[in-house]
Protein backbone atom coordinates (compact mmCIF):
# COMPACT_ATOMS: atom_id res chain seq x y z
CA UNK A 1 0.00 0.00 0.00
CA UNK A 2 1.24 3.48 -0.92
CA UNK A 3 2.11 5.70 2.04
CA UNK A 4 0.84 9.30 2.25
CA UNK A 5 1.84 11.93 4.81
CA UNK A 6 -0.63 14.32 6.42
CA UNK A 7 -1.24 17.23 6.11
CA UNK A 8 -2.08 16.42 2.49
CA UNK A 9 0.10 18.00 -0.17
CA UNK A 10 -1.43 19.20 -3.42
CA UNK A 11 0.73 16.84 -5.48
CA UNK A 12 -0.39 13.87 -3.44
CA UNK A 13 -4.06 14.82 -3.70
CA UNK A 14 -3.82 15.21 -7.47
CA UNK A 15 -2.00 11.90 -7.88
CA UNK A 16 -4.51 9.85 -5.84
CA UNK A 17 -7.18 8.12 -7.89
CA UNK A 18 -10.51 6.66 -6.89
CA UNK A 19 -10.32 3.05 -5.67
CA UNK A 20 -6.69 3.28 -4.57
CA UNK A 21 -5.77 2.06 -1.06
CA UNK A 22 -3.22 4.09 0.88
CA UNK A 23 -1.85 4.33 4.43
CA UNK A 24 -2.12 7.76 6.00
CA UNK A 25 0.35 9.01 8.63
CA UNK A 26 0.32 12.37 10.37
CA UNK A 27 -2.05 14.85 12.02
CA UNK A 28 -5.79 15.13 11.54
CA UNK A 29 -8.84 16.14 13.59
CA UNK A 30 -11.87 14.13 14.60
CA UNK A 31 -15.25 15.81 14.16
CA UNK A 32 -18.73 14.38 13.78
CA UNK A 33 -22.33 15.61 13.91
CA UNK A 34 -22.41 18.05 16.85
CA UNK A 35 -18.87 19.36 16.29
CA UNK A 36 -19.80 20.09 12.67
CA UNK A 37 -22.86 21.98 13.80
CA UNK A 38 -20.81 24.08 16.23
CA UNK A 39 -18.04 24.87 13.74
CA UNK A 40 -20.68 25.80 11.22
CA UNK A 41 -22.42 28.14 13.68
CA UNK A 42 -19.08 29.75 14.54
CA UNK A 43 -18.34 30.26 10.83
CA UNK A 44 -21.77 31.84 10.32
CA UNK A 45 -21.16 34.28 13.18
CA UNK A 46 -17.62 34.98 12.01
CA UNK A 47 -16.18 33.72 15.32
CA UNK A 48 -12.67 32.35 15.72
CA UNK A 49 -12.51 28.57 15.26
CA UNK A 50 -10.81 26.19 17.72
CA UNK A 51 -8.90 24.52 14.86
CA UNK A 52 -7.19 25.74 11.73
CA UNK A 53 -9.24 24.28 8.88
CA UNK A 54 -6.78 25.27 6.17
CA UNK A 55 -5.11 22.21 4.69
CA UNK A 56 -6.55 19.93 7.38
CA UNK A 57 -8.01 16.44 7.22
CA UNK A 58 -11.14 15.60 9.18
CA UNK A 59 -11.98 12.13 10.44
CA UNK A 60 -15.69 11.45 11.09
CA UNK A 61 -15.28 9.58 14.34
CA UNK A 62 -16.30 9.58 17.99
CA UNK A 63 -14.10 7.22 20.05
CA UNK A 64 -14.91 5.11 23.08
CA UNK A 65 -13.27 6.38 26.30
CA UNK A 66 -9.52 5.63 26.39
CA UNK A 67 -8.69 2.69 28.69
CA UNK A 68 -5.59 3.05 30.91
CA UNK A 69 -2.33 2.39 29.07
CA UNK A 70 -3.71 3.01 25.60
CA UNK A 71 -3.62 5.97 23.20
CA UNK A 72 -7.28 5.84 22.24
CA UNK A 73 -10.29 3.55 22.55
CA UNK A 74 -12.22 1.96 19.72
CA UNK A 75 -12.22 4.49 16.87
CA UNK A 76 -13.78 3.41 13.58
CA UNK A 77 -15.52 5.76 11.15
CA UNK A 78 -19.11 6.94 11.43
CA UNK A 79 -21.45 7.35 8.43
CA UNK A 80 -20.23 10.31 6.35
CA UNK A 81 -23.55 11.15 4.73
CA UNK A 82 -24.86 12.92 7.82
CA UNK A 83 -22.04 15.45 7.45
CA UNK A 84 -22.96 16.22 3.80
CA UNK A 85 -24.79 19.50 4.51
CA UNK A 86 -21.59 20.92 6.06
CA UNK A 87 -18.92 19.55 3.71
CA UNK A 88 -18.99 22.04 0.79
CA UNK A 89 -18.62 24.96 3.25
CA UNK A 90 -15.72 23.18 5.01
CA UNK A 91 -13.98 22.72 1.66
CA UNK A 92 -14.44 26.40 0.89
CA UNK A 93 -12.61 27.16 4.16
CA UNK A 94 -9.66 25.02 3.14
CA UNK A 95 -10.30 21.52 4.53
CA UNK A 96 -8.61 19.14 2.09
CA UNK A 97 -9.31 15.60 3.25
CA UNK A 98 -12.20 13.72 4.82
CA UNK A 99 -12.16 10.21 6.26
CA UNK A 100 -15.41 8.36 6.92
CA UNK A 101 -17.52 5.54 5.60
CA UNK A 102 -20.16 5.17 2.92
CA UNK A 103 -21.66 7.17 0.08
CA UNK A 104 -21.82 10.96 -0.24
CA UNK A 105 -24.28 13.21 -2.05
CA UNK A 106 -23.85 14.97 -5.38
CA UNK A 107 -23.11 18.36 -3.76
CA UNK A 108 -20.18 16.88 -1.87
CA UNK A 109 -18.78 15.23 -4.98
CA UNK A 110 -18.99 18.51 -6.91
CA UNK A 111 -17.44 20.55 -4.10
CA UNK A 112 -14.56 18.08 -3.75
CA UNK A 113 -13.83 18.46 -7.45
CA UNK A 114 -14.16 22.25 -7.32
CA UNK A 115 -11.86 22.74 -4.32
CA UNK A 116 -9.49 19.86 -5.17
CA UNK A 117 -10.14 17.92 -2.01
CA UNK A 118 -10.38 14.18 -1.40
CA UNK A 119 -12.70 11.78 0.40
CA UNK A 120 -11.31 8.58 1.88
CA UNK A 121 -13.24 5.69 3.38
CA UNK A 122 -11.97 3.36 6.05
CA UNK A 123 -13.65 0.32 7.53
CA UNK A 124 -16.83 0.55 9.60
CA UNK A 125 -16.92 -1.98 12.43
CA UNK A 126 -13.12 -2.11 12.74
CA UNK A 127 -12.73 0.32 15.66
CA UNK A 128 -10.49 -1.97 17.71
CA UNK A 129 -8.13 -2.59 14.76
CA UNK A 130 -7.98 1.10 13.86
CA UNK A 131 -7.16 2.05 17.47
CA UNK A 132 -3.74 0.49 16.84
CA UNK A 133 -3.20 2.89 13.91
CA UNK A 134 -3.31 6.05 16.01
CA UNK A 135 -0.14 7.20 17.77
CA UNK A 136 -1.38 10.25 19.65
CA UNK A 137 -4.63 11.86 20.70
CA UNK A 138 -5.38 15.16 22.43
CA UNK A 139 -8.62 16.92 23.24
CA UNK A 140 -8.82 20.18 21.28
CA UNK A 141 -12.30 21.65 21.71
CA UNK A 142 -15.92 21.15 22.76
CA UNK A 143 -15.13 18.85 25.68
CA UNK A 144 -18.77 19.01 26.78
CA UNK A 145 -19.69 17.00 23.66
CA UNK A 146 -17.92 13.92 25.08
CA UNK A 147 -17.29 11.45 22.24
CA UNK A 148 -18.35 14.17 19.78
CA UNK A 149 -15.62 16.59 20.91
CA UNK A 150 -12.84 17.58 18.50
CA UNK A 151 -9.65 15.59 19.02
CA UNK A 152 -6.22 16.04 17.50
CA UNK A 153 -5.12 12.65 16.18
CA UNK A 154 -1.84 11.45 14.86
CA UNK A 155 -2.40 8.62 12.43
CA UNK A 156 0.22 6.00 11.73
CA UNK A 157 -0.19 3.83 8.62
CA UNK A 158 -3.94 4.21 8.86
CA UNK A 159 -5.60 2.23 6.01
CA UNK A 160 -8.04 4.10 3.75
CA UNK A 161 -9.39 3.86 0.21
CA UNK A 162 -9.95 6.87 -2.07
CA UNK A 163 -13.74 7.06 -2.53
CA UNK A 164 -13.99 10.48 -4.23
CA UNK A 165 -10.87 11.84 -5.86
CA UNK A 166 -9.99 15.45 -6.70
CA UNK A 167 -11.33 14.95 -10.24
CA UNK A 168 -14.82 14.22 -8.88
CA UNK A 169 -14.64 10.49 -9.61
CA UNK A 170 -16.86 8.71 -7.09
CA UNK A 171 -16.38 5.05 -6.16
CA UNK A 172 -20.04 4.70 -5.15
CA UNK A 173 -21.37 6.39 -8.31
CA UNK A 174 -19.47 4.80 -11.11
Amino acid sequence: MRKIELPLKEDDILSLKVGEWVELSGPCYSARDSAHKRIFEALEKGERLPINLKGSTIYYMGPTPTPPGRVIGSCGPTTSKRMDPFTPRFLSFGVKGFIGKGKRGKEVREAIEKFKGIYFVTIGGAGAYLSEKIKDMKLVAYEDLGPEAIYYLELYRFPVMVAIDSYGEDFFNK
Partner: protein
Amino acid sequence: MRIIEGEEIYKLVKKLIEDANFDLPLSILNALKRAKEEEENPNAKIVLDILIKNAEIAKEKRIPICQDCGMVIIFLEKGEEVCIKGPLEEYLKKAVREAYLENFLRSSVVKDPLLRENTNDNTPPIIHWEIMPGDKIKISVMIKGFGSENASTVKMLNPTLEKEEIVREVINHVKEYGPNACPPLIIGLGIGGTMEKAIYLSKKAIFRDLYERNKKPHLRELEEEILDKVNSLNIGPGGLGGKTTALDVRIEDYPTHIAGLPLAINLQCCAIRFKEIEI
Protein backbone atom coordinates in the same frame (compact mmCIF):
# COMPACT_ATOMS: atom_id res chain seq x y z
CA MET B 1 -44.10 -20.39 41.60
CA ARG B 2 -40.36 -20.03 41.05
CA ILE B 3 -38.89 -16.81 42.39
CA ILE B 4 -35.78 -15.11 40.97
CA GLU B 5 -34.10 -12.18 42.68
CA GLY B 6 -33.89 -9.06 40.51
CA GLU B 7 -30.27 -8.75 41.59
CA GLU B 8 -29.46 -12.01 39.83
CA ILE B 9 -30.93 -10.65 36.58
CA TYR B 10 -28.84 -7.47 36.98
CA LYS B 11 -25.61 -9.48 37.29
CA LEU B 12 -26.41 -11.62 34.26
CA VAL B 13 -27.42 -8.67 32.08
CA LYS B 14 -24.29 -6.74 33.00
CA LYS B 15 -22.12 -9.70 31.99
CA LEU B 16 -24.05 -10.19 28.72
CA ILE B 17 -23.54 -6.51 27.81
CA GLU B 18 -19.81 -6.73 28.54
CA ASP B 19 -19.34 -9.94 26.57
CA ALA B 20 -21.34 -8.63 23.61
CA ASN B 21 -19.19 -5.52 23.26
CA PHE B 22 -15.85 -7.35 23.18
CA ASP B 23 -16.58 -10.79 21.82
CA LEU B 24 -17.87 -11.30 18.27
CA PRO B 25 -19.95 -14.51 18.15
CA LEU B 26 -17.75 -17.39 16.94
CA SER B 27 -20.21 -18.37 14.19
CA ILE B 28 -19.92 -14.86 12.73
CA LEU B 29 -16.12 -14.81 12.98
CA ASN B 30 -16.00 -18.15 11.16
CA ALA B 31 -18.40 -16.87 8.50
CA LEU B 32 -16.10 -13.86 7.92
CA LYS B 33 -13.12 -16.20 7.57
CA ARG B 34 -14.99 -18.37 5.07
CA ALA B 35 -16.07 -15.32 3.10
CA LYS B 36 -12.47 -14.10 2.94
CA GLU B 37 -11.43 -17.41 1.37
CA GLU B 38 -14.28 -17.32 -1.12
CA GLU B 39 -14.05 -13.67 -2.15
CA GLU B 40 -12.25 -12.78 -5.37
CA ASN B 41 -12.69 -9.02 -5.09
CA PRO B 42 -9.43 -7.52 -3.71
CA ASN B 43 -11.26 -4.81 -1.71
CA ALA B 44 -13.46 -7.45 -0.11
CA LYS B 45 -10.40 -9.43 0.91
CA ILE B 46 -8.77 -6.37 2.50
CA VAL B 47 -11.94 -5.44 4.42
CA LEU B 48 -12.66 -8.99 5.61
CA ASP B 49 -9.06 -9.45 6.71
CA ILE B 50 -9.28 -6.28 8.81
CA LEU B 51 -12.68 -7.27 10.27
CA ILE B 52 -11.24 -10.65 11.34
CA LYS B 53 -8.21 -8.98 12.93
CA ASN B 54 -10.55 -6.46 14.56
CA ALA B 55 -12.50 -9.23 16.29
CA GLU B 56 -9.28 -10.81 17.54
CA ILE B 57 -7.88 -7.50 18.87
CA ALA B 58 -11.21 -6.63 20.51
CA LYS B 59 -11.27 -9.92 22.40
CA GLU B 60 -7.60 -10.07 23.36
CA LYS B 61 -7.06 -6.44 24.33
CA ARG B 62 -10.60 -5.65 25.44
CA ILE B 63 -11.15 -2.81 22.98
CA PRO B 64 -14.83 -2.54 21.95
CA ILE B 65 -15.52 -4.25 18.60
CA CYS B 66 -17.03 -0.97 17.40
CA GLN B 67 -16.76 2.57 18.78
CA ASP B 68 -20.53 2.84 18.47
CA CYS B 69 -21.43 0.83 21.55
CA GLY B 70 -25.01 1.39 20.52
CA MET B 71 -28.21 1.45 22.48
CA VAL B 72 -28.78 -1.64 24.59
CA ILE B 73 -31.87 -3.63 23.67
CA ILE B 74 -32.95 -6.21 26.25
CA PHE B 75 -35.44 -8.93 25.33
CA LEU B 76 -36.94 -10.74 28.32
CA GLU B 77 -39.00 -13.84 27.74
CA LYS B 78 -40.52 -14.72 31.08
CA GLY B 79 -42.16 -18.02 31.94
CA GLU B 80 -45.67 -17.83 33.37
CA GLU B 81 -44.57 -19.77 36.46
CA VAL B 82 -41.69 -17.58 37.47
CA CYS B 83 -41.72 -14.31 39.36
CA ILE B 84 -38.94 -11.70 39.51
CA LYS B 85 -38.47 -9.90 42.81
CA GLY B 86 -37.46 -6.27 43.04
CA PRO B 87 -37.59 -3.17 40.83
CA LEU B 88 -36.50 -4.86 37.60
CA GLU B 89 -36.30 -1.76 35.43
CA GLU B 90 -33.93 -0.18 37.93
CA TYR B 91 -31.80 -3.32 37.97
CA LEU B 92 -31.58 -3.32 34.18
CA LYS B 93 -30.58 0.35 34.11
CA LYS B 94 -27.95 -0.35 36.74
CA ALA B 95 -26.57 -3.21 34.63
CA VAL B 96 -26.21 -0.89 31.62
CA ARG B 97 -24.74 1.98 33.65
CA GLU B 98 -22.10 -0.17 35.35
CA ALA B 99 -21.20 -2.17 32.24
CA TYR B 100 -20.62 1.03 30.23
CA LEU B 101 -18.78 3.04 32.86
CA GLU B 102 -16.57 0.23 34.16
CA ASN B 103 -15.51 -1.03 30.73
CA PHE B 104 -14.77 2.22 28.90
CA LEU B 105 -17.72 1.77 26.55
CA ARG B 106 -19.04 4.81 24.70
CA SER B 107 -22.13 6.52 26.08
CA SER B 108 -24.17 7.34 23.00
CA VAL B 109 -27.63 7.96 24.44
CA VAL B 110 -29.17 11.44 24.69
CA LYS B 111 -31.88 12.28 27.24
CA ASP B 112 -34.19 14.06 24.84
CA PRO B 113 -34.30 13.50 21.07
CA LEU B 114 -34.45 17.25 20.38
CA LEU B 115 -32.41 18.75 23.22
CA ARG B 116 -29.74 16.03 22.83
CA GLU B 117 -27.98 16.06 26.18
CA ASN B 118 -25.96 12.87 26.74
CA THR B 119 -27.06 10.74 29.72
CA ASN B 120 -23.35 9.85 30.15
CA ASP B 121 -23.99 6.24 31.15
CA ASN B 122 -25.78 4.90 28.07
CA THR B 123 -29.05 4.47 29.97
CA PRO B 124 -31.87 3.87 29.45
CA PRO B 125 -31.95 0.55 27.62
CA ILE B 126 -34.84 -0.47 25.39
CA ILE B 127 -36.73 -3.29 27.12
CA HIS B 128 -39.06 -5.80 25.42
CA TRP B 129 -41.17 -8.35 27.30
CA GLU B 130 -42.73 -11.58 26.19
CA ILE B 131 -44.62 -14.22 28.15
CA MET B 132 -43.93 -17.89 27.52
CA PRO B 133 -45.03 -21.14 29.17
CA GLY B 134 -42.87 -22.71 31.89
CA ASP B 135 -40.71 -21.39 34.71
CA LYS B 136 -37.63 -20.17 32.83
CA ILE B 137 -36.46 -16.73 31.85
CA LYS B 138 -34.62 -16.11 28.63
CA ILE B 139 -32.58 -12.92 28.51
CA SER B 140 -31.24 -11.69 25.19
CA VAL B 141 -29.10 -8.59 24.90
CA MET B 142 -28.44 -6.78 21.64
CA ILE B 143 -26.11 -3.82 21.17
CA LYS B 144 -27.35 -1.87 18.17
CA GLY B 145 -25.25 0.84 16.58
CA PHE B 146 -27.02 3.58 14.70
CA GLY B 147 -25.10 3.39 11.42
CA SER B 148 -27.18 0.32 10.66
CA GLU B 149 -30.21 1.38 12.71
CA ASN B 150 -30.55 4.50 10.53
CA ALA B 151 -30.45 2.21 7.50
CA SER B 152 -33.43 0.13 8.71
CA THR B 153 -37.08 0.77 7.90
CA VAL B 154 -40.67 -0.44 7.86
CA LYS B 155 -42.93 -0.39 4.82
CA MET B 156 -46.69 -0.88 4.90
CA LEU B 157 -47.15 -2.75 1.63
CA ASN B 158 -50.26 -3.46 -0.40
CA PRO B 159 -51.62 -6.95 0.52
CA THR B 160 -52.09 -7.90 -3.13
CA LEU B 161 -48.37 -7.58 -3.91
CA GLU B 162 -46.76 -10.54 -5.59
CA LYS B 163 -43.78 -12.25 -3.99
CA GLU B 164 -41.44 -10.76 -6.61
CA GLU B 165 -42.48 -7.27 -5.59
CA ILE B 166 -41.64 -7.98 -1.96
CA VAL B 167 -38.22 -9.18 -3.05
CA ARG B 168 -37.80 -6.02 -5.10
CA GLU B 169 -38.69 -3.82 -2.08
CA VAL B 170 -35.94 -5.47 -0.04
CA ILE B 171 -33.35 -5.39 -2.82
CA ASN B 172 -34.01 -1.72 -3.61
CA HIS B 173 -33.70 -0.86 0.06
CA VAL B 174 -30.41 -2.73 0.45
CA LYS B 175 -29.07 -1.12 -2.75
CA GLU B 176 -29.74 2.34 -1.35
CA TYR B 177 -28.88 1.88 2.34
CA GLY B 178 -26.68 -1.24 2.47
CA PRO B 179 -23.33 0.40 1.62
CA ASN B 180 -23.61 2.78 4.60
CA ALA B 181 -24.73 0.12 7.08
CA CYS B 182 -21.31 -1.58 7.51
CA PRO B 183 -21.74 -4.78 5.50
CA PRO B 184 -21.42 -7.81 5.58
CA LEU B 185 -24.95 -7.54 6.92
CA ILE B 186 -27.45 -9.84 8.49
CA ILE B 187 -30.84 -8.87 7.10
CA GLY B 188 -33.74 -9.41 9.49
CA LEU B 189 -37.16 -9.21 7.85
CA GLY B 190 -40.38 -9.02 9.83
CA ILE B 191 -43.43 -9.77 7.68
CA GLY B 192 -47.01 -9.45 8.87
CA GLY B 193 -48.56 -8.48 12.20
CA THR B 194 -48.95 -4.76 12.75
CA MET B 195 -46.36 -2.07 12.10
CA GLU B 196 -44.59 -2.48 15.47
CA LYS B 197 -44.90 -6.27 15.45
CA ALA B 198 -43.14 -6.44 12.09
CA ILE B 199 -40.30 -4.29 13.40
CA TYR B 200 -40.03 -6.37 16.57
CA LEU B 201 -39.81 -9.58 14.52
CA SER B 202 -37.15 -8.09 12.25
CA LYS B 203 -35.05 -7.38 15.36
CA LYS B 204 -35.60 -10.79 16.93
CA ALA B 205 -34.58 -12.46 13.67
CA ILE B 206 -30.99 -11.42 14.41
CA PHE B 207 -30.83 -13.89 17.32
CA ARG B 208 -31.48 -16.85 15.06
CA ASP B 209 -28.56 -19.20 14.40
CA LEU B 210 -26.56 -18.50 11.26
CA TYR B 211 -28.13 -20.23 8.23
CA GLU B 212 -31.09 -21.51 10.28
CA ARG B 213 -34.00 -21.20 7.84
CA ASN B 214 -37.64 -20.35 8.44
CA LYS B 215 -39.67 -23.54 8.94
CA LYS B 216 -42.29 -22.60 6.34
CA PRO B 217 -41.10 -23.76 2.90
CA HIS B 218 -42.30 -20.65 1.02
CA LEU B 219 -40.54 -18.34 3.48
CA ARG B 220 -37.40 -20.44 3.45
CA GLU B 221 -37.34 -20.08 -0.34
CA LEU B 222 -37.87 -16.36 -0.02
CA GLU B 223 -34.93 -16.09 2.41
CA GLU B 224 -32.69 -17.96 -0.02
CA GLU B 225 -33.84 -15.93 -3.03
CA ILE B 226 -33.24 -12.61 -1.28
CA LEU B 227 -29.83 -13.73 0.01
CA ASP B 228 -28.77 -14.70 -3.52
CA LYS B 229 -30.00 -11.46 -5.04
CA VAL B 230 -28.48 -9.26 -2.31
CA ASN B 231 -25.14 -10.95 -2.81
CA SER B 232 -25.29 -10.25 -6.55
CA LEU B 233 -25.48 -6.49 -5.95
CA ASN B 234 -21.68 -6.17 -5.66
CA ILE B 235 -21.99 -4.02 -2.54
CA GLY B 236 -19.63 -6.29 -0.62
CA PRO B 237 -17.79 -5.87 2.71
CA GLY B 238 -17.54 -2.22 3.71
CA GLY B 239 -19.61 -1.37 0.62
CA LEU B 240 -16.42 -1.59 -1.44
CA GLY B 241 -17.42 -4.43 -3.76
CA GLY B 242 -17.59 -8.21 -3.64
CA LYS B 243 -20.13 -10.94 -3.18
CA THR B 244 -20.39 -10.88 0.62
CA THR B 245 -23.01 -8.17 1.07
CA ALA B 246 -25.02 -10.27 3.53
CA LEU B 247 -24.04 -13.31 5.57
CA ASP B 248 -27.66 -14.28 6.07
CA VAL B 249 -31.29 -13.27 5.49
CA ARG B 250 -33.92 -14.28 8.06
CA ILE B 251 -37.65 -13.86 7.83
CA GLU B 252 -39.92 -13.93 10.87
CA ASP B 253 -43.64 -13.86 10.18
CA TYR B 254 -46.92 -13.32 12.01
CA PRO B 255 -50.62 -13.32 11.04
CA THR B 256 -51.77 -9.97 9.71
CA HIS B 257 -54.86 -8.00 8.64
CA ILE B 258 -56.76 -8.50 5.36
CA ALA B 259 -55.88 -4.95 4.36
CA GLY B 260 -52.18 -5.05 5.15
CA LEU B 261 -48.73 -6.47 4.52
CA PRO B 262 -46.24 -4.85 6.90
CA LEU B 263 -42.60 -5.44 5.98
CA ALA B 264 -39.82 -4.38 8.36
CA ILE B 265 -36.26 -4.42 7.06
CA ASN B 266 -33.64 -4.50 9.80
CA LEU B 267 -30.08 -4.16 8.56
CA GLN B 268 -27.67 -5.57 11.11
CA CYS B 269 -24.07 -4.41 10.65
CA CYS B 270 -20.97 -6.62 10.70
CA ALA B 271 -20.33 -5.71 14.35
CA ILE B 272 -22.97 -8.19 15.42
CA ARG B 273 -23.17 -7.86 19.15
CA PHE B 274 -25.63 -10.07 20.95
CA LYS B 275 -25.57 -12.56 23.78
CA GLU B 276 -28.30 -14.58 25.41
CA ILE B 277 -28.87 -16.86 28.37
CA GLU B 278 -31.72 -18.94 29.73
CA ILE B 279 -32.10 -19.48 33.46
